[in-house]
């Protein structure tokens, strides 16, 4: 049975996948992931201490070539002059299997998804950004938690002198943080502020966690380069 994020032992079911841990001998474990009856991944691990299911940044499948996520709204949001709008959107997340050993060091054994993986170009072909693409409804309430989705609280602030129409938001996985509640499929990002500067440009700021009970995931080191300004510029349109 699927239990939710966090520590698991022996086997666990996640969507269409079944993960099985087979103890071969003392200190040696065979990790296997099945899709139905088909074996998809098989790895041998030495001296693992525990395995955890972790919500993961959706930029690693089928392989990593971008750090961005583009969330397109299925309905546009209109925000008045100098006004604000508070919405929730659902961002796709992949699922990683972390293995822990001694010295509290973790390794990523496997990354898979229960979502459809699609990418889109944000901007122009020569200078734009290729981003993981998802369509979400802009909710005015917290949507029901779902496997493979993280809830993102977006505060749209209109700094422009006219009404604005917002239809998408670009997020940077290198700045984004993921949080989860162990034992559930609840996942969250930190609060996001989208400061709209003009009808076509906006700046995304990354704030604090929205769910106090949620635990932050351990980030892979290569996804956390040193940064001076933790913000994302949307230069090629907001709708």
């Amino acid at each position, binding site marked *: 049975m699927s239990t939710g994020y966090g520590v698991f032992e022996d086997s666990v079911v996640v969507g269409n996948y079944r993960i099985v841990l087979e103890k071969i001998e003392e200190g040696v474990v065979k990790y296997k992931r099945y899709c139905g009856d088909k074996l998809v991944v098989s790895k041998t691990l030495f001296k693992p201490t525990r395995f955890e299911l972790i919500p993961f940044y959706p930029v690693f499948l*089928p392989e990593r*070539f971008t750090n961005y996520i583009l969330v397109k709204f299925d309905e546009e949001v209109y925000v008045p002059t100098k006004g604000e709008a508070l919405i929730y959107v659902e961002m796709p997340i992949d699922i990683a299997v972390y293995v822990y050993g001694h010295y509290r060091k973790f390794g990523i054994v496997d990354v898979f998804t229960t979502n*459809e993986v699609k*990418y889109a*170009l*944000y901007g122009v*072909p020569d*200078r734009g950004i*290729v981003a993981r*693409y998802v369509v979400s409804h802009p909710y005015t309430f917290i949507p029901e938690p779902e496997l493979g989705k993280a809830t993102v609280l977006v505060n749209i602030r209109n700094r422009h002198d006219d009404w604005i129409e917002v239809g998408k938001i670009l997020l940077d996985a290198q700045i984004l943080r993921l949080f989860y509640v162990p034992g559930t499929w609840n996942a969250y990002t930190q609060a996001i502020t989208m400061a709209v500067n003009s009808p076509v440009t906006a700046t995304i700021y990354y704030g604090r966690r929205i769910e106090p009970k949620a635990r932050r995931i351990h980030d892979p080191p290569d996804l956390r380069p040193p940064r001076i300004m933790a913000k994302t510029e949307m230069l090629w349109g907001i709708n």
Partner: protein
Amino acid sequence: MDGLNLSNISGLVKEIDVLGILFSVMLIVVGVFVASLLRMLLYKLFIRFFPEPTSRNVSRAIYYIIIFVVGVSALGYLGIDLTGFMVAGGIIGIILGFALQSITANLFSGLFIYWEKPFKPGDLVKIGNVEGWVTDLTVMSTKIVGFDGVKVRIPNRTVFESLISNYYATRVRRIEFVVGIAYKEDAEKAYEVLYDVVKKHPLVLVEPEPDIFVYELGDSGVNILVRVWVPSRWDLTYKVMKDLLWAMKKALTEHGIEIPFIQNDVWFRTPLRVKIEGLEGLDKGKKPNKD
């Protein structure tokens, strides 16, 4: 007095021209100083535009040219006749000019390529007919490793004069597939089948949207053009190229859409006489010989 003849010494000094020596020494000192300063300044200037080895070599070459000119000028002030030297130098210069023409052309082409930056090491490019990854870009040549793993050295002059396509200069690129269907088939149904296939591939971008349309009424069938945008990185592009065509063929077959073979109608201007062996007897009312 046999020991010291002061009048001889003063005559010698007059012949050598003390002022000339002094001026020559000063010229050399100032020249070396200016050349060193210029070398340093040019190095700092070039390093902004060119790689370090190129900046170092070019500034060093300029330094030696200045030293050479200063040295020749200093010898002139010492009263040494340099006419013959200049003539010989001029002739050597002409000979070297002809001999090093291609080297000079490559050198300056290399500098212009550095300046213009049409590509950088690691980029996937097509220069003339050569396609591959740029591994090295020096003052004289550009080295490329082709898809077959062969390393090709292209002189910079050739690079400079060739058409250069840089596949990594943009974030995404468009690739195309031509799919033929039989004339009897419904092209709109084929569009739907093909669109479903491209939509399922994770590396086919949602935006810009795939474009599918009939672009040619061919000799044997209706040709449909499928245009999709993919990330520029070659391994990703190549994966889409490999996956999609076969997936589209399978999908069309599964939906019963015929992919035509080449069909040729041969028309003869004059009536043909066909002779079939073993049937000769039929003309005369005999049974054909079955043996």
